Structure formats: C-alpha cells, structure tokens
C-alpha cells in the first residue's frame, strides 16, 4: 500500500480524483528538482526583486504605536509588492515552475481577486494563457479586480454554483484541471488543497518571514514578541510565521474572519467554529454540519470567505504553536479606517483583520515589547465596499 503524503500531523494528504494523481505527482517531482536548482532560484529571486519589488519594507508604525500606547508595532508591507498583495510571491514561483514543466496555460481560483490579478500578471509576463475562476458574488464585490484581470489578458469565469464565492471557485478550478492537464498548471493561491500545494505555496510565501526576521534583528537587535497575520486559507499567515516557528518566544497569531460573530451562522472562522473534515484535497478544519456538508460561510472580506484553512495551520493550532483568534466585520472595518487615518496606509480588508487584533493586543503589552503585523495587501479594491458598509454609495 502506498503511503499518504504531505501530512502536517493528521492534516493534509491528497484527497483528489484519480484523474489528477499523476498531475500532482509530476508537480511534486518537478518542485523537488527545481527547489534546489541554482538557476531556478536565481531566476525567481530576480523576478521577486526586480519585478515584484522585494524585499518589502518592515516599517515602524510610530503613530499607530503611540495611539495604542503599548507594544511597538512594525508593519510588514506586502501591500507594496507589485499587484498590491503578497499573492505575487507564490504566483511568480509557481508560474516559473509551470513554465519549466512545459505548461503553457495557468488556471487559478480567486476570492478578493488579488490572487487572480497576480496570476494574470505572471501569465502576461511569461507569455502564458490564463483562466481565472471567481465566484459570481465576488465578481460583483470586486469588480475592479475583474477588470484588471481582463486588462492583463486573462479570461475570468464567474462561478454560479454553490454560494458563488471562493470555495466554489476552487471547486470549479479543480474540475477544470481534471478536464485539461497536459498543458495546464493549476496555480493554487493558498496553502491548501492536495499535497504538494500547501508545501509549495508555503515555501514561496516564506520569503515574508525570512525578510521580516532579518529586518527586525537589524532594527531592534532582537526578535518580536508577536507576529500577527490574517488567515483565510492562510498563505500570508504561514509565510509570516514560517521562519519564526522555531523561535518559541515569538507568539504567532492568525486572525480569522468572524463575519458577524462566531456565535452566529454568518462567520468564516474555521479554526474557531469548524471540525476536522476532508475537502478540496486535504484533511483540515472546515465549517460544516454534522453530516459533513460544507457550510455556507460569510465575511465582509472576499479573500477570507472560505470554509477551510490550510493543513499546516490546523497542525500549528493542534500543537498550540500558533493561536487563531476571530475578528468581526465591524472590528476589521474600524481597523481599516484607523490605520488609514493614523499612518496614511489603506490596508486590504483582509489585512485589516490582523490590524484589528493588534489594536486589542498592543495596549495590553509593555512599551518594550514588539509586534509585527503583516499587511498582506493594499485596500484600494475595498474602498467601495467599505463605503457601502458605512452607508455611503460611491460609484467606482
């Protein structure tokens, strides 16, 4: 009997149709080859530095620190990357890998549209075809990103099945992959899905904590006391945590989208409200009913509106290495506005969940403590939705 691969404790694995098995095996073999290939790494580093604008800044948010009156707060500015979010880190890695594998077509799912835009961008740069699946609901919430993807030459397919959000976009991208494998790479956007995706995406996102760790040591001469990031599938969070995992005194905090609250049904806080299950290729925590039917989830943030979480996060939760806290729509919107006013930085509504928790945590900590918040993306795309949330209608 063959052995299950890609486990993080009990989580992970490869729960996918037989039709896709050779495709993920081929991907794993290619990744294992290229991850240690000096030419591949040189090319990727060149793309990250000279195209995406890395390394990203670690910015001391002095005004925010003073306003909150506690721990010193640094912001890891992934919002400054080309395309406006951390998603480009993973996409450049996967697109380059796909190209080396001889693939000519990228398909992707997207929630807020950030991963779709990043994939469309990489496809344009590398001369590849690109198809992005996006829940129909999300195409309405994030119309600007739909336009950006089309401008970049991608086809955007609105997904009408299920709740017409991120999970349905993932399902549809998987279905598309089973029908066309030879020339197509599924550029999965988060640390989820079947092995080897959670590992590949984590490795490409780990650049966030590799830089942040070196930057904080340079600025402060010591490690931070806490690293805070938002968690949907969990790619920016795992990237922000990864190189701090061995540093036991650094608290790792993932902020889940609680929507209208974890005591309501309108939530997407998977670790806080879900149970272990098997879905989208992996074993992990999922929001579901007692018969294993996946629950419709809700968050103001299209990027965190997902009923599952990456298997490595599930494992970090199980072993208590990371803590996962719920943050409501209200708290996130307040943080979105607060950071804009205090620092002149408009964060993505996803990242605002991390800021919101830092606003609660920092005042409880001494002034000699240090927090790093990952600002996973910029908030331009969210302005219309936040205005609506506040009862103001602006035409984009």
């Amino acid at each position, binding site marked *: *009997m*063959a*052995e*299950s*691969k890609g486990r993080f404790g009990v989580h992970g*694995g*490869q*729960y*996918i*149709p*037989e*039709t*896709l*098995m*050779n*495709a993920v095996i081929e991907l794993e073999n290619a990744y294992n080859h290229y991850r240690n290939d000096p030419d591949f790494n040189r090319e990727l580093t060149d793309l990250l530095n000279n195209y995406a604008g890395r390394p990203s800044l670690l910015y001391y948010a002095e005004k925010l620190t003073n306003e909150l009156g506690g721990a010193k707060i640094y912001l890891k500015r992934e919002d400054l990357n080309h395309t406006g979010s951390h998603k480009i880190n993973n996409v450049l890695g996967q697109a380059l890998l796909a190209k080396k594998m001889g693939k000519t077509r990228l398909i992707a799912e997207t929630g807020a549209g950030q991963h779709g835009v990043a994939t469309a961008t990489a496809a344009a740069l590398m001369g590849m075809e690109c198809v992005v699946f996006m829940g129909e609901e999300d195409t309405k919430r994030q119309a600007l990103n739909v336009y950006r993807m089309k401008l970049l030459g991608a086809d955007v397919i609105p997904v009408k*099945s*299920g709740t017409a959000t991120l*999970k*349905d976009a993932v*399902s549809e991208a*998987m*279905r598309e992959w*089973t*029908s*066309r*494998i030879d020339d197509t790479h599924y550029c999965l956007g988060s640390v989820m899905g079947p092995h080897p995706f959670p590992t590949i995406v984590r490795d490409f996102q780990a650049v966030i904590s590799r830089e942040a760790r070196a930057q904080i040591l340079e600025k402060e001469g010591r490690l931070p006391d806490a690293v805070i990031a938002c968690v949907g599938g969990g790619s920016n969070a795992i990237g922000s945590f990864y190189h701090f995992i061995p540093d036991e005194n650094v608290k790792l905090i993932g902020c889940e989208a609680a929507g209208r609250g974890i005591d309501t049904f309108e939530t997407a806080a998977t670790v806080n409200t879900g*149970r272990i*299950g*098997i*879905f*989208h*290729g992996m074993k992990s925590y*999922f929001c*579901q009913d*007692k*018969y*294993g*039917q*996946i629950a419709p989830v809700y968050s103001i943030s299209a990027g965190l509106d997902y009923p599952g979480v990456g298997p490595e996060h599930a494992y970090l939760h199980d072993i208590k290495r990371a803590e996962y806290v719920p943050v409501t729509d209200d708290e996130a919107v307040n943080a979105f506005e607060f950071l804009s006013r205090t620092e002149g930085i408009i964060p993505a509504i996803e990242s605002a969940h991390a800021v919101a928790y830092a606003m609660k945590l920092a005042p409880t900590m001494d002034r000699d403590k240090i927090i790093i918040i990952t600002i996973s993306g910029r908030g331009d795309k969210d302005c219309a939705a936040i205005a609506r949330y506040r009862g103001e209608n602006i035409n984009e």
Partner: protein
Amino acid sequence: MSDIRKAFENGKAFIPFITCGDPDLETTAKAIREMAENGADLIELGIPFSDPTAEGPVIQGANIRALAGGITTDKIFDFVAELRRDVKIPFVFMTYANVVYSYDAERFMARCCETGVGGIILPDLPFEEKGEFSAVAKQYGIDLISLIAPTSAGRIKMIAKEADGFIYVVSSLGVTGMRSEINTDIGEIVKIIRENTDIPCAVGFGISKPEQAKKMAGLSDGAIVGSAIIKLLEKYGKDAPSYIGEYVKSMKQAVSEA
C-alpha cells in the same frame, strides 16, 4: 465479500446511478424499483454532498435539489433499510470522503453492512489515501471501489492488484456528464487490469446512448450511467421513474448485445 460479484453474473452489467432524495425519496424508491425490474444489475446510490468536485453540472444539480429537500445520511440509511425488504438488487453508495468521515467511517460501514449495501465509491479518495477507510470497510465486508482514469498510466497495476468488488474505469478526462464521444483507449486500460486482477471492471463517465454503452461494455464487463438518468429526473421530476425504467431497459439490452 459483498454481493457485487453477482451483478456481473448476468452477462455484461448495466449499472445506473441515482442521487437519493432528488427530488424526494418516494421518487427515488420508485426509480430504483423501475431500474431493478428493467434489467439493472447493480445500482449506484448517490449520497449528496454540498460540493461535489468530481461532478458536472447535471449531477451537481441533483445534489443541490436533494440537499434542499432536507436529505441526510441517516435518512438515506433508513430509506435503504426499508427498500431492502423487497428489493434484492446489489447496491453501492457513491459519495465523497467527507460524508463518510463525518459520519464516522466505522459507523458508516456498519450501517452499510446492516442495510445490505455492498460497496462504496469515493471519487476523492485515491489509492494513496484509501488505507484510512479500507481497513474498516474490510472488517464489515464492504468493498471500497477503486477508480482508474485515462491519466492513470503507471498506476493501473498497483490499483488493480488491491481492488475489491469491481473496478470503475473513468472513460474520459474531466467531470461526470454526457459526452458525444469517448476517445480514451479503454481496451488498453482493461488489458492491464486483466493482467493484474480477475475482478470485473465497468466503464463510466460520459455514457448516455445505447451504442456507447454497448461499445464500452464490449471493451469491459459493464457500463455505468449517471447524468443521463439525472437528466430524466430534471425533466420529469416525480414522473421520471417510468421513463427511467424504459431507459434502463434499452441500455441493458444494448450491453447484452455487446
């Protein structure tokens, strides 16, 4: 061992699929009786899942209708137990790994055993992951059905050697649904299967017409049809069972000629 073998003792097998509870269990019961009376050899009973990633739009629709009608795994077990009083045809369940996992695999297999369901097809459980379910399935005499796809090159032998019940040969790339043609070299796949096991194999995905069923059954031990039957339910609703009966009759006749 389960009763699945019996399904392949009456010439080439015709295996229809139906989603339990689409649009309601009364209709499902009538359709199953029609299938049994009109020559079906084995029936695949679908337990609906909210997010059936291996299904095309037709069977996705059946899943949604059934769940909207309030169907649950428990209701389906009770339904099968009731049906088993007089319907003797072999059954297998077709559902997704999370449905079995959430019910508790052992409890699920125990109820299959109790209600006379001989096998389970889980399209999102490949060879590498089956260990977690196959041990407990064996314990209750339930066959965990293996699937082999057009992309299984290099894996067929390994899968066939450990297969139980019958082997489900996936005819085409992509998801379930009707196709005008099937281009996979099914004969070559079946040849490798035969070299490694003597359990029967049936072809599914994309088959809707009698000629296709005849051709696929000619290359294997039987043909599996899902979406074409769900289409009848979609079109005729509660009146679908008699149409399903006629359809099954024509398909069984076609595979018998193979």
